């Protein structure tokens, strides 16, 4: 039965080159743990067939940290929780540029400027629009931005200002969302994603697994993502943050994480699937396994407020796996 299912999934994605149905994905999600390596191996084949061997490398920077009025229960930057992360104002241009240069030196092609805000106010918009061409021209990096919920006008201005890709995460499914965010709703997130699309920026729409959502809710999230069809999906795993309501949750187990990376690849065969926050504590020694389970992009080095692995370890890993570093973007 299990073998037959894996064969059928492979036929669909590799021979027929069609997307899986919701039922097929649900069946794959129920495979026993012992079959996760086989599922991962299929996902790797699918990634190579649909996306090729290249891996996109990105660095990210929190350019305005903490003090966010929203209450995302996983986030150390919400002003509603007693978090040890101190709020700091917008970094100077020189500081942002220095961080972008650090990223460029590693051979990355992408740099994402991230702001802890509900959405950008006019001053923030002006700062972003000032920074983006400077960073792009000085470093040659594609510049992405993550600044929360946008209006139609703001999305248009960011696209016109050279923002190559905009990040706005769904994080979780519509049915689970109210359990982790109460200050804005799922629809507002979807609306911003649509605006990003409408104005011709690439859409980066990430998830955060391990907040207590069920298997069904992860499948529901996958269905929503498939409908949105983002260019990129960063896969974050919960890193329980001191002071936040989700600090008591245990990180996902490594095998479960690999299972879901593989399922994301099978559900989104042509999407850039990026290793993101929480992978160090979740996968521990299994970092290579994600890259052979469907991942084809990664954030190197540190995250917004937490630290990552030594970038050289990841770059060596890519070399060992014979995965060349390259940009997967469609529009450069």
């Amino acid at each position, binding site marked *: 039965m299990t073998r037959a299912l894996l064969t059928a999934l492979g036929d669909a994605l590799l021979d027929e080159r069609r997307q899986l149905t919701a039922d097929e994905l649900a069946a794959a999600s129920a495979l026993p743990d012992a079959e996760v390596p086989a599922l991962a191996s299929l996902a790797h084949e699918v990634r190579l067939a649909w996306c090729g061997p290249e891996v996109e490398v990105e660095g990210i920077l929190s350019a305005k940290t903490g003090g966010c009025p929203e209450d995302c229960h996983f986030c150390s930057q919400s002003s509603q929780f007693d978090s*040890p992360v101190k709020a700091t104002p917008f970094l100077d241009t020189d500081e942002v540029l220095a961080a972008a240069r650090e990223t460029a030196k*590693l051979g990355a092609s992408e740099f994402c400027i991230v702001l802890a805000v509900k959405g950008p106010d006019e001053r923030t918009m002006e700062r972003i629009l000032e920074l983006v061409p400077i960073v792009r021209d000085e470093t040659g990096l594609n510049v992405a931005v993550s600044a929360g919920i946008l209006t139609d006008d703001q999305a248009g201005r960011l696209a016109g200002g050279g923002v190559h890709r905009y990040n706005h995460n769904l994080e979780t499914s519509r049915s689970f969302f109210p359990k982790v965010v109460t200050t804005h709703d799922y629809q507002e997130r979807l609306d911003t994603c649509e605006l990003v699309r409408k104005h011709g920026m690439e859409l980066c729409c990430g998830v955060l697994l391990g907040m207590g959502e069920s298997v069904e809710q992860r499948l529901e999230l996958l269905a929503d993502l498939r409908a949105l069809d983002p260019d990129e999906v960063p896969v974050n795993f919960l890193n329980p943050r*001191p002071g936040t309501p989700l600090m008591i949750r245990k990180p996902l187990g490594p095998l479960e994480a690999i299972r879901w990376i593989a399922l994301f690849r099978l559900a989104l065969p042509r999407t850039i699937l990026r290793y993101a926050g929480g992978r*160090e504590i979740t996968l521990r020694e299994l970092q290579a396994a994600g890259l052979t389970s469907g991942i084809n992009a990664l954030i190197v080095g*540190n995250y917004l407020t937490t630290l*990552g692995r030594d970038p050289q370890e990841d770059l060596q890993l890519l070399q060992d796996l014979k995965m060349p570093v390259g940009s997967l973007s469609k529009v450069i």
Partner: protein
Amino acid sequence: MHCPGCGRPSEDCPGCLPAFDPPRYCADCGGWLAVRVSTGGWVARCKIHGETTAAR
């Protein structure tokens, strides 16, 4: 000395900083640090003791 995770004196907290976190409080005075994290490192600034940096 103070715990870099919560700022309490070391006698009261032997260390609660998670493995992949930069310091949040000054080890010398327990003051709250303004931390800037970037791809290749971090800079933590204490109002009294100035900046500490790390390559990662």
